[in-house]
């Protein structure tokens, strides 16, 4: 299993029936492919849709039905459309149960940086700041390290997305939560030992007595 699939499958286990869920671009988008069978989840696209469906079959795309990146999508039975004020009212107002976003850094206190690298990458935050500030539960789906450097850092040196800490981080090596505001190693990827995770983690992690492997 490649790293992205592993992350997406583990995040999908966090979804509950009836949840309203917003998936960011990149690895988070893949989560929709692994929703457990029989689970009814509503996916929101922040450009104005609840009930996002899979990419339409060849020739079935509609130019006025796209995801937030402008790519064609479909809408499931029961879908609803609305304007951007409603869409962000849902997000900021705490009506979205889970948001899954990519990350550049998450620090020991659970703070996320994911929208800019000063002087290098300044695309704009889009909806990320509202999602992290307003969603009931924030899950970060990202690689544990980039170019050999830990993305789980002691303190973010990139600009923060929100002052609100995230709830869960799922990487290709570990699941990290923040009980009592302290980064804690909850699970390791299949076949990985705790020491192997710690060796590539900059932030100090609390280690419970038992750290199970992810069940995928």
């Amino acid at each position: 299993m490649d790293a992205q699939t592993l992350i997406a499958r583990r995040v999908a286990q966090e979804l509950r029936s009836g949840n309203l869920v917003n998936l960011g671009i990149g690895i988070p988008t893949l989560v929709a492919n692994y929703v457990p069978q029989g689970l009814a989840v509503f996916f929101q696209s922040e450009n104005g849709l609840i009930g996002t469906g899979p990419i339409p079959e060849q020739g079935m795309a509609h130019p006025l039905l796209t995801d937030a990146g402008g790519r064609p999508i479909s809408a499931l039975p029961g879908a609803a459309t609305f304007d951007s004020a409603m869409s962000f009212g849902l997000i900021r107002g705490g009506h979205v149960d889970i948001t899954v976003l990519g990350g550049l850094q998450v620090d020991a206190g659970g703070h996320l940086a994911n929208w800019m690298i000063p002087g290098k990458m300044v695309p704009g935050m889009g909806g990320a700041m509202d999602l992290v500030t307003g969603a009931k539960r924030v899950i970060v789906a990202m690689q544990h390290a980039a170019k050999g450097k830990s993305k789980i850092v002691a303190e973010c040196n990139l600009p923060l997305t929100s002052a609100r800490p995230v709830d869960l981080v799922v990487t290709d090596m570990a699941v990290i939560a923040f009980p009592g505001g302290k980064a804690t190693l909850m699970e390791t990827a299949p076949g990985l030992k705790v020491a192997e995770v710690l060796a590539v983690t900059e932030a100090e992690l609390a280690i419970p007595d038992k750290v199970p492997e992810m069940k995928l």
Partner: protein
Amino acid sequence: MKPVSAEEAIAMIPNGASIMVGGFMGVGTPDRLLDELVRQKKSGLFLISNDAAVPGKGVGKLFDGGQVTNMIGTHIGLNPKAQQQMLGKQITVDLIPQGTFVERIRAGGCGLGGVLTPTGVGTLVEGGKQKIDMNGKSYLIETALRADFALVHAFLADYIGNLAYALTARNFNPVMAMAADTVIVTAENIVPVGVIAPDHVVTPGPLVDYLVANG
């Protein structure tokens, strides 16, 4: 509501005007008006739009010819030309959170001075803004946003300017239709009065100043 041609509509917009343009990554954008802005070489525009789309598409066309000098938006990462112009300081871009963007416009259209939002507290977005604590939570004061012109795209327009939208092409259009001195609309379909049932009208006709005739 007055019917006009795209050429007449854009001729009303002076160089240097502020324009709000509906659409999200080019979806729900009034393309005929943008093409006409390009053809009439309007310059020095202050663009208020969610994103910069991509080169050659939607509002992206305005960056191709350097017609924009200022922009307020939320994301321009998919338009390398807009990025280059911003990093090269040819244009000024104020990037703000999307929820804040739409609420500032909504406030502008609804007679509010601004809104209080928790989004951006404790981040770079705080810069230069007033912060207030209320009921134990911190909020930023975000001021209302209006424009000289709103360029709006609808799915249906009837002869008196009632508008309805389709799927994800609705996005910022109905909110912007409230927040400009002059509102110019294009529609995929222009239909007789009554075809859009009262319950399905999203933007009531009196908000629309000009409807661009199809043809």
